[in-house]
């Protein structure tokens, strides 16, 4: 089976690890081999959380610079920061609602201009899908569902060898029962947002 490499970048607390878990369970349902890696510990205290997910027959669980087929960013400046993982054939999906790092508040750095950031990503990769995933999550019923909105967009692209039904089944079985309906709605909104972009 061909190998598809996915990088997810997020800020600690945005639900990156749950998104990876749902994708992994969906891969299990779809009978697609998957290996992933994540970093725990000190990196999680409000820092950047990066997951690497490798679908297919590769043995490696991490993804080198320039080798991601898809990059999903839960926060726009983090998407921009992770461009080193991309190449000219990479598809990029990003949330556009910023979470400025604290360093900006104390005057150590300027948050990048969002239009400029999108132009840069578009110019350097194959495709950019960008929308306000927080707004869609809110519409689905919880701002916490940003991760699932973005999974909806990711599955819509068809880049991963995982059908929509398997992903929805993983949401039903692996996310908290109280949030399943919100998550399914969030998934659908993300899916449609990508279809319309």
């Amino acid at each position: 089976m061909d190998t598809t490499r996915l990088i997810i970048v997020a800020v600690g607390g945005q639900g990156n690890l749950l998104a990876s878990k749902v994708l992994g369970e969906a891969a299990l349902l779809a009978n697609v081999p998957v290996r992933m890696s994540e970093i725990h510990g000190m990196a999680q205290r409000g820092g950047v959380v990066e997951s690497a997910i490798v679908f297919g027959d590769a043995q490696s669980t991490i993804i080198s610079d320039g080798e991601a087929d898809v990059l999903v960013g839960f926060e726009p400046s983090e998407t921009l920061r992770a461009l080193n993982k991309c190449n000219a054939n990479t598809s990029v999906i990003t949330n556009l609602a910023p979470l400025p790092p604290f360093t900006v508040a104390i005057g150590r750095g300027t948050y990048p201009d969002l239009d400029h950031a999108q132009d840069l990503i578009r110019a350097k990769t194959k495709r950019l899908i960008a929308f306000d995933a927080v707004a869609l999550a809110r519409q689905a019923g919880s701002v916490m569902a940003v991760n699932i909105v973005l999974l909806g967009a990711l599955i819509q692209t068809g880049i991963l060898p995982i059908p929509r039904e398997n992903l929805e089944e993983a949401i039903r079985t692996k996310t908290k029962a109280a949030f399943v309906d919100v998550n399914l709605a969030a998934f659908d909104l993300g899916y449609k947002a990508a279809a319309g972009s």
Partner: protein
Amino acid sequence: MHKLLTDSPGKKMLLLGNEAIARGAIEAGVAFATTYPGTPSSEISLNLFQISHESDLYFEYSTNEKVALEVASAAANSGVRTFCMMKHVGLNVAADPLMTLAYVGVKAGMVVLTADDPFMFSSQNEQDNRYYGKLSGLPVLEPSSVEEARRMMAEAFDLSEQLGEPVIFRTTTRVNHSSAFVELGKLSARKPKGDFIKDPFNLVTVPAVSRRLHVRLLENWEKARKLAEGSPYNFTEGSGPWGIVCNGVSYNYVSDAVGELGIADNTQVLRLGFSHPAPPEKIKSFLKGCEKVLVAEEGEPVMEETIKAFAQEEGLVIPIAGKGEELFSRLNEFDPAMVRRVIADYFGVAYTDSRPPDLSDVPEIPQRPPNLCAGCSHRATYYAVKKAAEGFETVYPTDIGCYTLGFLPPLAMGDFLICMGSSISTACGFSQATDKKVIAFIGDSTFFHSGLTGLVNAVHNNHDFTLVILDNGTTAMTGHQPHPGVDMDNLNLSGYGRVSIEAVVRAIGVKDVTVIQPYKVKKSIEAVKKAMDHKGLSVIISQQICTLYARSLKQLKVRAFKVTDKCKNHRDCINEIGCPAFYLDGERVQIDPNTCVGCAVCAQICPENAITPVKEKQAE
């Protein structure tokens, strides 16, 4: 039921490497487990802790790794299958018992897991613990993948019983913290009680006994070497004149590279999973079939040096390389592209990389370093000490935990750190060797781990400094594990003793002891000033439960604050305490009500009293 107790052999589960290791130990019938938590090993013990609540598995969080290994060694010498796990630097703490336990041996299987952390994602160094195999003479097993980690655990226990000595199980972060499908094996029955048979002339290591035991250790080493020759974990793949020797996760990168470079027909790969003692015949026969050999191993050139020595014994003059310029580095972790590049360059294979785009026109993106949480009590304590110490020239020895992050600006409280417990002992040295005001910081769990002996030293040698014990009621950094000072009622667990930090500090002989509540800013500053005025040793115990822990216990009463129109933009709030609940809305400081937990520290330091509670109280 805990998911790792699922009794369905053959069922596939998506498991974290650390879950797979815990499952492997359960499948092997482990009955006794000890640890001190440390990333990247922590989820192994967390799962075993949970499993112990619903089975006859005995599990304990020991006060440190030395204690954990000693407790475990007694169980293993009573005929109980025992598992002791820790992060790589933990094995330094446990090195003393390890080295002589290797002489004494065990009566039932004992596995000592060391989780190494190449690139230091969450560690103070990236030492290569394969050397502990060489140092102790004990066998070392190294899995390459999540699934193999599960399988290899059973092998490790069997090997330990075959040799009558502990086995070192060495992982790296990318095994511990990778996830993959795992096929569950059969569960074995546990034997939680054994018997200790007196045998002092083999078990009490006075010199005359140890001289004999050392002979036995070397005999065992020979036996292990023979077992490594036939081990299925040491295998060769492919054939051809180019040889690659690898271990652990580097095997994955090598396998992928051989496929991607299309060199499978020219290349044979030797993977060493039972890596110490290295099997001489297997390696020599591999070398004889190669014209050129590359050794791919993260960290130090452990295999490379062994293999070169074997080649010398055989009079082989083929090129053998591993570490060096243009080759593999001893620094950091490997990645697939880097391994592919080195293989291609070394064997002269043409290839094209997927290159990252030119990023020279991307504007600098503001850094997002890890930070103390909103409402973290450590921030409040650091602020109080910083204010109290204004006007003094200071040295702030710090220690290992979340609070280490206090060394970052704007708090900038942390000047020296080498290992667990070093804050107190180095404070002894700094206060004697300099004329600066020395204030040391240590967390509650770290204090029990290895702060006590330093404090006794400070009392006995009459050192002059202030120690601040940051007591947040849990081991926060590694995921809220208990420690001897924790109120186990919070976890609905009974049958534990509780050690009072204050009582211990007073009993050690510290005369000046003050307990503060760090959210009370003014009182805390006054208390620290008084402690600093004290000539000699003084101790401040700063008590406030970890915010994340309180939230997980549903004890957190959130009362968010807001910045009102009285704000004159002094920005003391953001510039001095750096709480992540603050953000800038244009030029105005604002508080994110979803992040603020209501510690009210900022409200107490605002010169305009412009920070006030958002009206209604929300219980969580």
